[in-house]
């Protein structure tokens, strides 16, 4: 067991989950609502369920998942469609099944990782043909689009991160990877003519260096050119309130009474933590209800307020251990399917940790992405424990060789 069951993967996740429950307890301790006070108990149950899923995945032969990857994928899409259809225009991210709420987006993440891995692991030709990239994009775009419609921008962003990580992992030359993402970068750079001019010059060099076929080069040339021209036009034709929405999304400090309020309160809580924190169950940001969504998206602020820099560092180290083991499994995996899946799952983990903590510190927009293992929420916890299950299983298969 100790050879095949990697404690270096299991233990950090396990400890993080326990810390999460402790923080949820602290975050809701002063709430006046009894159901809020009971959230840590619910999370404990979810934790049990997550462990069960993890063990189940560990013991089910990986071949089955490999075989059913596309089936999972279509089932996930079906779920998303049903959710969208049943919500009838109102925002909904959950299926309500009695006392349990299920977030299909989390299931979809897993399904997409498996489907992409299956696709990339079994390809017969090299991926320098952009055809494959387009198929990959399609595999991702369908569920991501359905999730954007919920609307849940944050979760859908995780899918595009997945895409980026997967093409890097496929071994595509770096200049081509960059070239593929240039149309997206073009939108950002086009907000000022000078930055866009520099950017476009870089794109031209990349096209030249990448030794593309003529039509591919022409495609990237015109894609970037048109996006660069259209973006300022669209921006200038937006209403003032629409611009404000985009600006406050990117920089919440611009709106101290609305979105900025959460960020300001979160930063105050973090800053007040100091080296050792205010102490467990101490600290007025939590106590007096100033921290919004503190058991959920802003759980890291509770950690920072009550346990200070030391507490944050411990949690970050646990995450780094997980990242490291995740990529290690991906590097040594026995076959390409395992390798891509391990990389994809780890990439989602990394992405959510960075985005969530960045948001807490006011470095990133407020996207509503939970912090893996720590934030309250069953679907998220189960997804990440499923990911741990897969990583453990991939690791075992490599050891068995």
């Amino acid at each position: 067991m100790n050879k095949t069951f990697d404690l270096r993967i299991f233990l950090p996740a396990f400890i993080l989950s326990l810390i999460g429950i402790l923080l949820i307890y602290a975050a809701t301790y002063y709430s006046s609502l009894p159901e809020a006070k009971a959230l840590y108990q619910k999370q404990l149950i979810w934790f049990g369920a997550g462990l069960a899923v993890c063990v189940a995945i560990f013991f089910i032969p990986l071949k089955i998942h490999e075989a059913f990857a596309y089936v999972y994928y279509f089932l996930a899409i079906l779920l998303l469609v049903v959710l969208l259809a049943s919500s009838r225009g109102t925002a909904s991210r959950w299926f309500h099944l009695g006392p349990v709420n299920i977030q299909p987006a989390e299931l979809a993440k897993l399904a997409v990782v498996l489907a992409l891995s299956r696709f990339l692991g079994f390809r017969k030709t090299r991926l320098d043909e952009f055809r494959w990239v387009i198929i990959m994009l399609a595999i991702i775009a369908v569920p991501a689009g359905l999730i954007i419609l919920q609307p849940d921008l944050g979760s859908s962003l995780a899918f595009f991160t997945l895409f980026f990580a997967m093409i890097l992992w496929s071994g595509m030359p770096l200049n081509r990877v960059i070239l593929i993402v240039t149309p997206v970068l073009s939108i950002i750079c086009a907000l000022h003519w000078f930055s866009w001019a520099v950017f476009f010059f870089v794109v031209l060099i990349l096209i030249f260096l990448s030794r593309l076929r003529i039509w591919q080069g022409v495609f990237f040339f015109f894609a970037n050119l048109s996006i660069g021209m259209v973006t300022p036009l669209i921006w200038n034709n937006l209403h003032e309130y629409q611009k404000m929405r985009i600006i406050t999304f990117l920089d919440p400090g611009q709106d101290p009474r609305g979105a900025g309020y959460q960020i300001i309160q979160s930063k105050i809580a973090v800053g007040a933590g100091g080296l050792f924190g205010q102490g467990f169950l101490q600290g007025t940001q939590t106590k007096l209800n100033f921290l919004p969504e503190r058991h959920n998206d802003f759980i890291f602020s509770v950690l920072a307020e009550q346990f200070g820099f030391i507490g944050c560092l411990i949690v970050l180290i646990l995450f780094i251990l997980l990242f490291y083991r995740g990529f290690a499994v991906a590097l040594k995996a026995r076959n390409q399917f395992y390798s891509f899946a391990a990389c994809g799952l780890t990439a989602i983990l990394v992405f959510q940790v960075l985005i969530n903590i960045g948001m807490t510190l006011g470095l990133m927009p407020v996207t509503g992405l939970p912090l893996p293992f720590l934030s309250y929420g069953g679907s998220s916890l189960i997804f990440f424990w499923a990911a741990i299950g897969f990583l453990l299983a991939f690791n075992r298969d490599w050891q068995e060789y």
Partner: protein
Amino acid sequence: MIADSHESRRLNYYVLLIGILASILFIVVKLFGMQLFSGGFYRRAYEQNGVRVVPIQAPRGIITDTHGTVLVKNRPSYSIYLVPYEVNSLDSASIHLGRVLNREPEKIKEQIRLGWQGRFQPIRLKRDLKFETVCYIEEHALEFPGIIFQVEPTRSYPENNFGSHIWGYIGEATEADLAVDDSGNYSLGDVIGKEGLEKQYERYLRGQNGLKYLEVTAGGRILGELPGKDRINPVRGSALELEIDWELQEIAETELAVYGSGAVIVIDPRDGGVRVLASVPNFDANLFSGVISREVWEAVSSDSLHPLFNRSIKGTYPPGSTMKLFTATAGLVNDIITTETFFDPCRGAKKFGNRIFRCWRPGGHAKLSIIDAIIQSCDVYFYQLGVKIGLDLWSRTVQDCRFGTPTGVDLPGEFAGLVPSADYFDSRYGKDGWTKYLILNLAIGQGELLVTPIQMAVLYAALGNDGIIYKPRIVSRIISSDGGSLEMRPEIVAQLPARKENLDILHQGLLGVVADERGTARSVSIAGISVAGKTGTAQNPHGDDHAWFVCYAPAEGPELAVAVIVENAGHGASVAAPLARKILEKYFEHMPIALDSPDTINTQP
């Protein structure tokens, strides 16, 4: 091919790893900076976050009269505050509150807008709520979210409105008040003195507001005072001890009220202390303590008698015959006349140029000395004296007597009155637009000459006190809440331009006005007290003449100088003089001299 792909994957893996590590490093550095090196920035924000600093209003200083009788004090009252954070719809809240507070919803929204200091900071909507209103809102608490009450001191003035022109009134600081204030101690809606002593002594009366620190949740719920942070108690404003004698003040206002409008000033000639400052009609200063409702304001300001107008220091009237003393002063001091000087006898009128000027007594006064002319108030004598003095000398001397200059009483907004001079007439009527006979009217206190009642009292006090002109003082002492006191010392501002022998002559004349059988104010004589005074009738182009009486007593060593003007009451002797007598009687009934008086009377046959 595969090898190539693996090679390239390894490279990409390192790029990815470096990106991730750089991001984590960035987060750690940011955390380090925020938590350990933010220089207390977040710490301060953190400490302020759950704390609501609520001012505790300091009670204003009380005001007492010279005997220690408390005249102006404070009483507890309810103020209503709104916490914007707890209100879902300001529109509907304004409508509900407007109904209960008798105010237009628009006005309430305006108050909220002006008073906004953040959504957790309570905004005061109204002071001094009726207890029934407080009960009603408490009973219907669900209809009024975000409402809190606070007990605050409110000014309480005498019920009978007496003295209102002394202390004036307070009000809420407006944007205009804030613009003027350079102390930075006021915020919108704070209480500030607007008139009278309340305004003049604002910085003493105000005291210092205290603070308390309340712990509040983000939802605005108050958990109580913040543990470990002591409240700063307010410092009560300094008390004012006045020279005012409330008993005399009450008599003056009661008597004046009989006639409708007028003013009474009583001054102690020995030091300038103001014993009475009455102006009628008066007003209810209590109505002004909070926000003045529009109805009250309109009622008060549209009243034809102008109850907010302080006649005693702002009312300017022709002085009538009371001025003759100063025309006489001009004659005596400039050596134009002596007691031996006689003019043409009075035959009831005299022709100057081609106009006939009449004496008040159609029968005439025959040949008079200056003393008799004062006693009988003979106009013809003073016409001739005026012409002899001439306009320039007359107006210069009268100005030296400090007519046309504010007395400097410690109240805001005192008027100066007017002493016309040749320059004045030139600018008013043109270089040759007036005749030298304008001096005739001025010499008997009519025409364009204007004086205030307080000027009259101050200068008659000087006549009785060797010509020494004191600055009138209402406040005698300022007593701070820690017991320290500041004496307001008597202040001599000038000396009447008259020699001792001149003053003796005037004094004899004034005594005769009351004591002589031909005097115009025989009705004032009080057994045992010698009163020196002068009646006057101020011609009023808008209606009946105003009645003047000015005096000092006891004549040999004056303790009081009294100036009375009763508007539209006709002749000074019949209305103003008896009113002054009532004040003197009241004053001297307590005095040792009054106890001596039976003896004095008995020994004199």
